[in-house]
C-alpha cells in the first residue's frame, strides 16, 4: 500500500448527504477483475450525460456541465469534502479505488459509513471526520474560492485552513502507523501467526463442529 504523510491539496466540495457507493462507482464497472482503472468512472452517472460502460474512453464522453467536479478548476482536486454518511450502502472497495484513482487522497465529512471508512485505509486514502459546523465552514469557503487549499498533516493529526486556523482529527494508532508507513496489513498480521494458531487450537477443542 502507498503511504500517506502530508498533503497541501485542492478541495472539491460535494454538497450531498448520504452519497452511496452505487453513486461513487456504479455496478457495471464492478465486473472488472482488476484493482485499478476506476478513476475515470468515479460518480459516473452524475459526471457524464451518457450511460457509461466498462472500457469506454471517457475523454470522448459528454460531460454533465452541472456537476461541479467537471469544472476545470477541480481537475487537480485531492481533497474530497462531503456531507453526512458518505460511502453508505454496498461494501464494494471499488468505491475507494475509484476515488483514489481520480487523484483524491483525503476525504473530509461529518460522518462516514463504517465499511467504506475501513476500506479507505487499505488504499492509502485518509478519511477525516470533522465537526458539522466546521464542515459547513469548509463548504462555504471552498465554494467561494477559486483555489481553496487545505494542508493535511497525518503525523500531527492536523488540518490547516488558508486562514491559518487549524483543527485536529482522530485516527487509531494502528491505522496511523500503517498509513504513515504504507504497511501491508497482511504481513503485519502474519507476524502473529503463532497466536492465531494457538487461538485456533483452543477454538477447535471448544467448538469442534466449526472445523468438521
Amino acid at each position, binding site marked *: 500500500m502507498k503511504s500517506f504523510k502530508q498533503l497541501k491539496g485542492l478541495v472539491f466540495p460535494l454538497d450531498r448527504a448520504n452519497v452511496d457507493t452505487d453513486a461513487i462507482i456504479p*455496478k457495471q464497472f464492478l465486473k472488472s477483475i482488476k*484493482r485499478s482503472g476506476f478513476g475515470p468512472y468515479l460518480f459516473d*452517472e452524475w459526471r457524464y450525460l451518457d450511460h457509461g460502460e466498462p472500457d469506454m474512453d471517457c475523454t470522448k464522453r459528454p460531460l454533465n456541465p452541472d456537476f461541479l467536479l467537471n469544472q476545470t478548476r477541480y481537475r487537480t482536486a485531492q481533497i474530497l469534502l462531503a456531507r453526512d454518511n458518505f460511502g453508505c450502502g454496498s461494501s464494494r472497495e471499488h468505491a475507494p479505488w475509484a476515488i483514489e484513482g481520480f487523484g483524491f487522497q483525503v476525504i473530509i465529512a461529518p460522518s462516514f459509513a463504517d465499511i467504506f471508512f475501513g476500506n479507505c485505509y487499505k488504499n492509502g486514502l485518509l478519511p477525516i471526520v470533522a465537526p458539522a459546523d466546521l464542515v459547513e465552514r469548509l463548504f462555504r469557503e471552498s465554494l467561494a474560492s477559486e483555489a481553496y487549499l487545505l494542508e493535511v498533516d497525518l503525523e500531527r493529526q492536523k488540518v490547516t485552513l488558508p486562514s491559518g486556523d487549524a483543527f485536529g482529527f482522530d485516527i487509531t494508532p494502528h491505522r496511523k502507523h500503517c498509513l504513515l508507513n504504507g504497511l501491508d496489513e497482511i504481513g503485519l498480521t502474519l507476524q502473529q501467526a503463532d497466536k492465531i494458531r494457538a487461538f485456533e487450537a483452543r477454538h477447535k477443542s471448544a467448538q469442534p463442529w466449526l472445523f468438521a
Partner: protein
Amino acid sequence: MAGKTLYDKLWDSHIVSEESDGTCLIYIDRHLMHEVTSPQAFEGMRLASRLPWRKDSIVAVADHNTPTDHWEKGIEEPIARLQVETLDTNIKEFGALVYFPFKHENQGIIHVIGPENGTTLPGMTVVCGDSHTSTHGAFGTLAHGIGTSEVEHVLATQTLVAKKSKCMLVRVEGNLGQGVTAKDIALAVIGRIGTAGGTGFAIEFGGTAIRSLSMEGRMTVCNLAIEAGARAGLIAPDEKTVAYLKGRTFSPKGQDWDRAVAYWATLPSDVDASFDAMVELKAEDIAPQVTWGTSPEQVLAVGGRVPNPAAEADPIRRLGIERALHYMGLTADMPITEIKVDKVFIGSCTNSRIEDLRAAAGIAKGRQKAASVNQVLVVPGSGQVKRQAEAEGLDKIFTAAGFEWREPGCSMCLAMNADRLIPGERCASTSNRNFEGRQGPGGRTHLVSPEMAAAAAIAGHFVDVRNLY
C-alpha cells in the same frame, strides 16, 4: 459486574490478540465469497505467493452476474463471463468447503445458500465481501460485510483487524397485523433511526415481535441492518434457530450437535446486560411500508403521502427531499397509493426465501397482473428454494398470474445481469436499496415486502395489502 450482550459474547470468544488502543485481531470462522469482490483478493494472494489459511472455511457461489433465464446460453456479456470464470479458476486453485458454480443445482444468492446448507451457525464469525452479510446475524452469528482488501486478509490470515463496535438494542414488542412483515419492521426501524442511525453499532433485534418471526423473517430483518448503517444485525438463537438448522448438510451431527445446541443456549444476551443505545417500537403501530425516495430512510406507511419539501426546516434534508422527488418523478403530497408501477421484482437476499415466495403467491393466487405492468419477475434465492417452491406449485400460481418464474441469483436487486429497469421505469421491489440507478440507470425503485410487491403487480399501483386478505 453487568452481564454480557450477545454481541459481547461473540466478540470476546473470537479475540486472538488485542492492542492497547483496543484494535483486535478477530478470528473468522466462515468466509463467504462471490465473483464480484474476490478476484482482486485472489490476485493479491497469488502475487504474494500466499495460500489460504483455512480453505475449509470458504463457501463460494457465483450470484451477481448470472442470468436468470436461458441458462443454456451461458453468460453472454464477455466481461461478466470472465468474472464468473475467474471465480471458477480461483476456487479450483485455492480450494473451498463448498462451491456452487453457475448452473449448479444448488446455486443461488450467497446469503441464501449459506444458511440453507448449515454453513452459518450460531456463535460463528461470518464475513463476506458483501454488505448484506449482516443477514447471517439472524442465527446469533457475528456477521458483516468487508472490502476486498479484507477478503484477502481473511484468506491469508483467517483473521480481521477490527475494533469493537457499540451495541444497540432494537426492541419490537407486540403482535404484527396480517399483511405486516419482517420487511415492514426493518423499514420502519430505518425510517425511525435513519440510514446512519446504526453507524458504529451492531444492532441486536429483540422483543416478542422479533421472536415470533420465522428464521426467514429474521434473516430479512438482519439483512436490512446495514441499510440502517449497522454492519452487523443480531438475533439471539432459540428453539426456532435449532429447528431450522437440524439435519442441514453442514450442521453438526451426533454428539457435536448436542454440544453445539448446549453452547448456543448460552449465547443470548444476559438479562442484566447493558446496551449503548436502545430503540423501541410497537408492532401494532407498524403498517405496510413503501419507500418513496432514493434512500431507504425515505419511507412511509402505505396510507401516507409523499412529503412536501416546503415542510422541512433543515436545509440539507429539504434539498435531499427535492432531489429525491425530482429523480423519482413524484409530486409532493401525492398519496402513496396513487403511485403507478411499471415493473415488479420479487427476489434478492432480502426477500427470496421460500416463505417470501409463499407470501407473494398467496396474494397472486387467482389474480392477474395489471395490464399496465410491463413485467413481474419472481427470482428464487437458490436452487433449493426454487425446487421447494415448484414442489408446492408456487411457480404455477405465479405464471398463471402473468408473473415470470426465473432461475436463482441476485438479478434486478442490483442489475449486474440483464434484468434491469430502463430509464424512467418505476419498480415495486422486495430488494434492499432504492439508490439512484440501483436497478438500472434512471430506474426508480420503491422498496416493499413480497406481499406488497405482489399486490402492486395486481393493481398496477401501490395498495394496502391488508385490504386483499
